[in-house]
């Protein structure tokens, strides 16, 4: 029997947004083909969250020589460890280039579920402080939507995904439809009280808002606090495509999931000016295939989706399909991170945590909210938390013998960390292009990435460090250690902006519904669509935009508009 090649919809990618598009389109009745470049994942075999350290050859330190040889870029991500490195690509197999002085860390996962397997799970709504930011500051272009447009879609995706957290009623960080929050530990409670008192409500500390169930949802169980979500979750407690959206799509009987399918380009009919489907290379056989559909959703990640479009040039679109604006591939953003402070907090020495909470604390943005900061635009939020030092502290101590051993069997002092995630301004000069002289293993031109943080980000980074130290001093912490890790862009793994939305087809790639201005049956619903970067983690917004775009696309199809 030959393989079916015609569908109602094609979704490229099976990560956070591809999973959502698969679920929404198939539930709305479309026969949907989901193309995933990587291999299938079998949770019962591939998830390793309960494999203890003593069963790992290098006791969790990772196979250093292999990591440096095969995954020198990927292994700079905290989650790419001895257990989870198999969920990250091998750098040599998926090359890209950058100028010498503009390093970019492109962290990727090629498998069914994509990076939703190893993502950080922090989930926050964006607000009109974000959606109005470009207009207010006169930077780049205005967002073509506002909070009220996306609000019902946040409700919708949260209801399904399950977001635990605490309602605060803050305008700059709207509350989600929350599951019960995870507990703060005693030192976090203490810091929270002191922050509230000292900063009279202008700065607040709350539990992280996380896509992890604190109560059962359907056939997904509540978290059992084993700790390392990035290794998988056999109880499907945290949200991922594998744990939630793909099973829902599967249930409709209308989804076909095709792994090992590397999308080469989008095919285009110049008479109808519509996409007709996609060209695919089977990664195992290298066979060239073509699939056709009425509508194409690119959900391959910010940089992979734009790579596909740049590689889909036609006589009409010589610089890449759907690129009449010339903005495709431009305005690449990521968050700045790695600046903040940590300290020791006295008190609660007779208290411990039971269980490993896969979530920290959050301090919502306080810069440029009510008052204007003299040195930089936009702002940042802090992530961090309190924990008791473990046995590792004994390495730097000089003790040995029975007393030393006994002291290490007990928890050490409470430490508290605060590290910022800061907004990056959109900049036309941060961009990617095809490097036509270099191709990957499937003959597809690789990306050349030109991206660097600017002056506003540098100033914000310094403030992130100083303000964190100031907060820790205000709460009476000791041994305060401010610090900045000058991470290059990419490492926050919040890359976005290369196929931005906008009102005007002359200056943007997509309209307010993630639909290409130029090619009406083509949608891009991953991070590429973002017009500015906010300072909060973007995945929840990608989910809401994807569900909203699917709803719009199906309605347009029913009206005969696509």
């Amino acid at each position, binding site marked *: 029997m030959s393989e079916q090649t015609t569908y109602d919809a094609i979704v490229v990618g099976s990560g956070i947004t591809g999973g959502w598009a698969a679920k929404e389109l198939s539930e709305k009745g479309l026969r949907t083909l989901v193309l995933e470049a990587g291999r299938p994942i079998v949770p019962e075999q591939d998830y390793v969250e*309960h494999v*203890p*350290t*003593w069963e790992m*050859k*290098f*006791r*969790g*330190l*990772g*196979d*250093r*020589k292999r*990591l*440096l040889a095969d995954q020198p870029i990927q*292994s700079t991500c*905290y989650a790419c*460890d001895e257990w989870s490195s198999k969920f990250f690509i091998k750098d040599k197999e998926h090359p890209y280039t950058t100028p010498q002085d503009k390093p970019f860390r492109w962290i990727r996962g090629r498998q069914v579920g994509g990076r939703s397997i190893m993502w950080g799970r922090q989930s926050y709504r964006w607000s009109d402080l974000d959606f109005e930011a470009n207009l207010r500051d006169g930077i780049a272009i205005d967002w073509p939507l506002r909070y009220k447009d996306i609000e019902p879609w946040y409700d919708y995706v949260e209801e399904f995904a399950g977001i635990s957290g605490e309602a605060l009623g803050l305008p700059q960080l709207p509350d989600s439809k929350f599951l019960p929050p*995870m*507990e*703060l*530990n*005693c030192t*976090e*409670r203490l810091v929270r009280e002191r922050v509230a008192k000292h900063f009279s409500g202008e700065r607040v500390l709350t539990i992280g808002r996380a896509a992890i169930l604190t109560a059962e949802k359907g056939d997904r169980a509540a*978290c*059992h*606090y*084993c700790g390392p979500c990035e290794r998988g979750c056999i109880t499907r407690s945290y949200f991922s495509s594998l744990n939630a959206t793909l099973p829902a799509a599967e249930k409709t009987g209308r989804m076909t999931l095709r792994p090992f399918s590397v999308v080469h380009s989008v095919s285009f009919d110049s008479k109808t000016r519509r996409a007709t489907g996609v060209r695919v290379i089977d990664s195992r056989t290298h066979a060239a295939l073509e699939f056709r559909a009425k509508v194409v959703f690119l959900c391959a990640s910010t940089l992979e989706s734009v790579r596909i479009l740049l590689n889909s040039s036609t006589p009409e679109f010589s610089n890449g399909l759907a690129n009449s604006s010339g903005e495709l591939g431009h305005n690449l953003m990521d968050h700045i991170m790695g600046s903040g402070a940590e300290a020791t907090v006295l008190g*609660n*020495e*007779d*208290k*411990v*945590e*039971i*269980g*490993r*909470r896969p979530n920290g604390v959050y301090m919502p943005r306080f810069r440029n909210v009510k008052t204007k900061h003299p040195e930089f635009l936009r702002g940042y939020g802090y992530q961090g938390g309190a924990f008791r030092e*473990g*046995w*590792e502290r*004994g*390495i*730097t101590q*000089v*003790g*040995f*013998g*029975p007393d*030393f*051993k*006994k*002291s*290490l*069997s*007990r*928890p*050490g*002092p409470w430490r508290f960390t605060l590290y910022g995630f800061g907004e990056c301004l959109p900049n036309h000069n941060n961009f990617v292009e095809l490097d036509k002289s270099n191709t990957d293993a499937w003959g597809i031109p690789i990306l050349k990435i030109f991206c660097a943080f600017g002056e506003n980000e540098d100033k914000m980074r310094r403030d992130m460090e100083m303000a964190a130290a100031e907060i820790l001093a205000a709460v009476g912490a000791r041994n305060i250690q401010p610090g900045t890790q000058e991470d290059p862009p990419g490492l926050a793994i919040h890359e976005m902006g290369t196929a931005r939305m906008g009102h005007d087809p002359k200056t943007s790639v997509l309209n307010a519904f993630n639909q290409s201005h130029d090619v009406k049956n083509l949608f891009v619903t991953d991070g590429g669509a973002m017009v500015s970067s906010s300072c909060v983690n973007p995945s929840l917004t990608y989910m809401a935009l994807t569900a909203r775009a699917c709803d719009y696309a199906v309605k347009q199809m029913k009206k005969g508009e696509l």
Partner: protein
Amino acid sequence: MRRREVLRLLATGTALQFAPRNLLVTIAQARTLLGSPAGLRTLDAHQEAIVRMMTELILPRTDTAGAADVGATEFIDLMLTEWYEQAERTLFVKGLADVDARSRMLFGKDFTDCSPMQQADILTALGEHMVEEGAQPLPVESNSASETNFYAMLRRLTLTAYYTSEKGATEELHFEIIPGMYEGCRPTSPVKGVEEEK
């Protein structure tokens, strides 16, 4: 030739017929690789004895298991053989020679022949030297930084071997793979106690 390849060859009888002429040399090399009494690959018998004693001095068997019970020396040999770079391996091996040099200077005999009190004196001196050098042992999960101080390296390896072993984790630290709950503020029992401030 990689050790795994050697082992595979040794285990494969048929390989002999097709083996290259230098196979006998290879087998001899493999025997050397696998040659120490405990099957260690980097440490020789004397170095092994020093490491065994030092790791057990740092984390001795008490009412719970000690470093030797969880195979700390074997883990250290694995790390030296497969994980560390040559320069770090050299640092470690030189460090062991320095331990003997110190014990000969102070007590006129090898470290392994010293009394426990004398050995403790040497560990104390190594600790002081580590602090003087301002050695910052690597963060436990660092892949790219290099070790610079022998004693810091030994301590990092000993503690890692012990606390990530099954006995160290479950009996000493009461680690549970599936806690099943989270509580942020549990009073400690007197047994588990807390570290007294000194």
